[in-house]
């Protein structure tokens, strides 16, 4: 498998007069674990939604290897979305459907109209879904309604859904912002395992600096829609942090919220 680079060039999106994302240019190399930080309203979510093409850019281009992602339409666009899976802060599961069906939603991009309307999936797909759930230690809950699970469990279901998409890139928009420290650690460890063991590129928005420092090989800081800093955690000095979050920045976030001192539970490898 060739491993293309994800390139954003001059990428921008305006909402009315707001420049949510403003001329962002960067390359994301295969296998990187990239954290995007910045205060609320900096444009982090918009950036991820642009990459997944949930929203269309008003300027610039996204390319993945030789593919012009911004030009994709119809079935090709749906396949792109499958290839760069997305995880949301609020999980975005269908609470009334069972966990297994929620995971199988990750297979819909390859389904025809009738099979999809009848909610018909192949045995191979179901096996794949159960495997993904088992990897996230949720196989026993497979037939439970997603809405009955705790937040941490729901987020892991969302990761399982992303896994069965067999993605090349995984985007996560503040995946731990509404979780307690223990669950936050489990989710971050799951993303780390996906990155290291499966070689999937991870691009994650984070609201806490210490999480970004712990897990990411590269940190991009956004401010007013622009990529304001791009470097290693080591290069992210206190001066830079103050610039990112403003003068009251260092009190603006709580380094303890997602304390990484809690022992991470071991993740099983997929067979």
């Amino acid at each position, binding site marked *: 498998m060739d491993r293309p680079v994800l390139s954003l060039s001059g990428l921008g999106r305006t909402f009315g007069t707001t420049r949510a994302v403003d001329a962002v240019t960067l390359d994301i190399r295969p296998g990187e674990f990239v954290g995007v930080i910045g205060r609320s309203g900096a444009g982090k979510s918009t950036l991820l939604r642009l990459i*997944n093409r*949930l929203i269309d850019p008003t300027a610039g281009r996204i390319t993945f290897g030789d593919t012009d992602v911004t030009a994709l339409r119809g079935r090709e666009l*749906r*396949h*792109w*979305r*499958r290839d760069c*899976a*997305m995880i*949301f802060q*609020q*999980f*975005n*599961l*269908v*609470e*009334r*459907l069972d966990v297994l*069906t929620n995971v199988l*939603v*990750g297979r*819909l*991009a*390859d*389904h025809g*109209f009738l099979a*999809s*309307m009848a*909610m018909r999936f192949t045995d191979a797909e179901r096996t794949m879904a159960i495997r993904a759930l088992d990897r996230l230690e949720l196989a026993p809950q497979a037939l439970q*309604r997603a809405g009955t699970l705790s937040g941490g469990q729901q987020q892991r279901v*969302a990761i399982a*859904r*992303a896994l069965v*998409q067999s993605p090349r890139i995984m985007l996560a928009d503040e995946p731990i912002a509404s979780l307690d420290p223990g669950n936050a650690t489990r989710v971050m460890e799951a993303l780390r395992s996906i990155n290291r063991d499966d070689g999937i590129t991870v691009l994650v928005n984070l609201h806490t600096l210490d999480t970004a420092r712990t897990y990411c090989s590269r940190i991009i800081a956004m401010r007013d829609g622009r990529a304001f800093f791009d470097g290693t955690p080591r290069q992210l000095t206190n001066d830079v942090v103050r610039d990112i979050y403003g003068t009251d920045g260092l009190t603006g976030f709580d380094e303890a919220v997602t304390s990484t001192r809690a022992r991470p539970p071991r993740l099983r490898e997929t067979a």
Partner: protein
Amino acid sequence: MAFEQDFARHRRRARRVFAAVSVVLAVLFLLTAEASNFFKITQVTLADGSRAERWVIGAGLPRLGEYIAKTIPDLGWATLGGDIATWFARWQIWAVLLLETILIAFMATVLGVIGGFILSFPASRNLAPNRWILWLSRRYLEIARTVPELVFALIFVFCFGIGPMAGVLAIGLHTAGALGKLYSEANENIDMRPLDGVKAAGGSWSDMIRYGAVPQVLPNVLSYTLLRFEINVRASSIIGYVGAGGLGQEFRTAMSYQEYTDLSALFVIILVTVTVIDRLSEMLRHRVIGLEARA
């Protein structure tokens, strides 16, 4: 002091608004009353044979009593069984027509639910793929529910001939319009995040609807549907009046042959049927809601 002045001003304004609304309502009442001959004076024949001028409502009310009296059958305690048998002498015909009535309502509800359900998604502001489809599906549902069943029935009897087929289509079309509107209102209140989730995973528009929206609105849809079935039984019991099948045709027969007691018998049949269906569907609805609450 300031408060009292404020309060007084407030009171004055409230009184002015009240007076203005009263005047408008009074004028509207007079206009509609005039248009509907509410104040008309008619000539009536008194008991002694002389003619007199009377207000139309006063003159007509006694005749309502007369009419109802005519439809009440002669029932005596001693001969009750026989009297009822006479009252319901046409029961064999009526039983068949009642079954037809319920089947028309059922078929029409099924067709209407399918049509209304499918159209409710493009007709929802938050789900429509684009403005044109939203506009088109909304207008279609509007027309379907604004035109009364009886008008559709007249048209369909003309197209497809006399019989239950015309009734099914007429009530089905009206049902699609009415339910489509209700369903789309339920659609517009759903949580959009699950749909984003499906879309981000590569799902199509129909996948977003099927997996994201349908599970959220299903309980509402079931409840509206059962409610609609009751309404359709009422509609299908009268639609035969214009030849579109069901018990309605018997109303017409009874009136033209002046079989007044038949009218009351039919009325009793419909009352009982609608009541029974009403109760059954209420039980079902509660069960559905109960299931929802527990799951």
